[in-house]
């Protein structure tokens, strides 16, 4: 097996063994820190050791019995779901408009809408903090939702834009020729066919908001602290294993989202088979 050619260039697996080892090490480096937190979170001691000496649910208990932690989790969930809805609607509208126009001005509009993804987060953070101070939006859910929506819009625009780019223009034309108004055609023909892209935009938007730290650090505090903001403060000030429990839940959430994305994509493959 090892002496079999590994590729068309006749290199053997044995000759490439070093490459396999290196790649395996890099992948371990990438994945272990994401997963190691899960067993650690079931440790029964204040010190996080691997493998833990004893097992317990005390850190999960600490999370679920703490009003502060729960309150910030609720804030994060509220903000993330509002952001998902707002960013998906605004991003899809903008993406559709950009797709339809093909005018000379479009590049500027698209560039402006993608900007939040390119700019360093710290800049968005102090900028929003600065403007919000004048609009009394600091420490409000509205402020958080608006800032997170701005950060999430580029992801929705890219995802929906990809969907529209591979969507057959004749589909919508057919609907129009059969008597559908532009809105009707979009809702009954276009949207059902780009739903996969819209859904992956939604997932991106949710994760963008739920995992966001830097901007929240500046524009939320006290009762409106997001989960990640409270975690950040906690990590910086003391190493409290409750954070390990929360982190484990976030990792599991990421895995679920990843699986959901795969599921949505597979569904999408089936839907595109329809063409």
């Amino acid at each position, binding site marked *: 097996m090892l002496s079999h050619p590994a590729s068309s260039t006749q290199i053997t697996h044995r000759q490439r063994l070093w490459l396999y080892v290196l790649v395996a090490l890099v992948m371990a480096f990438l994945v272990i820190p994401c997963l190691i937190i899960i067993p650690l979170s079931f440790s029964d001691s204040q010190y996080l050791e691997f493998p833990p000496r004893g097992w317990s649910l005390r850190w999960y208990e600490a999370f679920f019995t703490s009003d502060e932690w729960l309150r910030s989790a609720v804030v994060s969930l509220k903000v993330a779901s509002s952001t998902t809805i707002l960013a998906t609607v605004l991003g899809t509208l903008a993406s559709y408009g950009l797709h339809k126009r093909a005018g000379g001005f479009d590049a500027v509009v698209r560039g402006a809408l993608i900007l939040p993804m390119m700019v360093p987060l710290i800049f968005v953070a102090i900028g929003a903090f600065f403007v919000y101070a004048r609009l009394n939006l600091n420490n409000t859910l509205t402020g958080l939702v608006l800032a997170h929506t701005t950060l999430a819009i580029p992801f929705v625009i890219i995802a929906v834009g990809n969907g529209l780019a591979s969507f*057959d223009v*004749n*589909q919508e*034309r*057919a*609907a*129009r*020729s*059969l*008597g*559908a*108004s*532009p809105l*009707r*055609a979009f809702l*009954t*023909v276009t949207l*059902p*066919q780009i739903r996969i892209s819209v859904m992956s935009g939604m997932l991106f938007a949710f994760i963008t908001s739920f995992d966001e730290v830097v901007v929240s650090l500046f524009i939320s505090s006290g009762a409106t602290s997001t989960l990640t903001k409270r975690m950040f403060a906690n990590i910086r000030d003391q190493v409290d294993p409750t954070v390990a429990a929360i982190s484990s839940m976030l990792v599991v959430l990421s895995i679920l989202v990843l699986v959901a994305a795969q599921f949505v994509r597979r569904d999408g493959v089936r*839907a595109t*088979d*329809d*063409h």
Partner: protein
Amino acid sequence: MTSGALSIRNVSKAFGAFRALDNVSVDIEPGEFLTLLGPSGSGKTTLLNVIAGFERPDSGSLMVDGVEFITRPPHKRDLGMVFQNYALFPHMDVFNNVAYPLKLRRREPADIRERVKQALDVVQMAHLSARRITELSGGQKQRVALARAIVFEPKLLLMDEPLSALDKNLREHMQIELKRLHDRLGMTTVYVTHDQQEALTMSNRIAVLRNGRIVQLDTPTNIYDRPNCHFVAGFMGETRMLPVSKTSNGYELAGRPLKLALPPSPVDEQWLVIRPERLGWQGDDERDNRIEGLVVDVVYRGDSHSISLKLPGDHEISIRRAPTESKPLPEPGQTLTLWLRPEASVLVQDSAS
């Protein structure tokens, strides 16, 4: 069914420096089957899109039954359209695809069922009304697309190369079927194709387009037999053009005077249109419009032999010899005498006058 008269006046459309449509005018009679024929980039699809309302021209007028349509949005035009790739909605089954225009018009459910059934009957697809679009073959999709386009009894039927995705046999079958359907429903039809055979088979009239202009608008017979320019002649059939020289009282080919179907226009540079099936070589030699051809090779093709000839001026042409024909098969290197009857002899010049 109602059928509309369509009047297109001075329509122009430019994409940047490219003139997709250059001052196009054409009148289409109620019930007529008009084909827009031309190579890609000739503007035929752009013109169809202007009629459907998908493309906004820079100027011009579009009257349907005397009503100005030029700025009317597509969904208020009531024109049925069949697309090149059918554009059937993959997330709906056959029934719902065909019912879609009726639902938009808020017809009663019972009425919708009845009309969908009728339309599917017309295209012989009623038995597949519950099928998913993915489960249909190319020809079936074609039929469903047609049913969807006619179910709401539009004034006009527009078709954009509807048969180009089908294989050759099915395409020829569908040509005949579409033609019969047109005869039965009598719906005004504008049909776009780049396939001259298809245009000749189906149309009442053909508009040949080139560089955004209509170069000839006429019946299939006249388009084929009486092309008005080098381009139209070259576009229809397998055509060779031989330059002819002008004399004091007419034209001559290789020193012999030509007898022509039509009195020639007084232009110096003219070509004689030669189509292989119009060339005579069997039976007794005729005196008129004789051409000598050098046999290059003879190829067996099963149903016939194909004889490649070199005509004066280095033009090559292939003629067929059916097994039933009497004259013996020529040998390569031999010279063959061919002739064109005066009624099949047409001169063309560079561009339409």
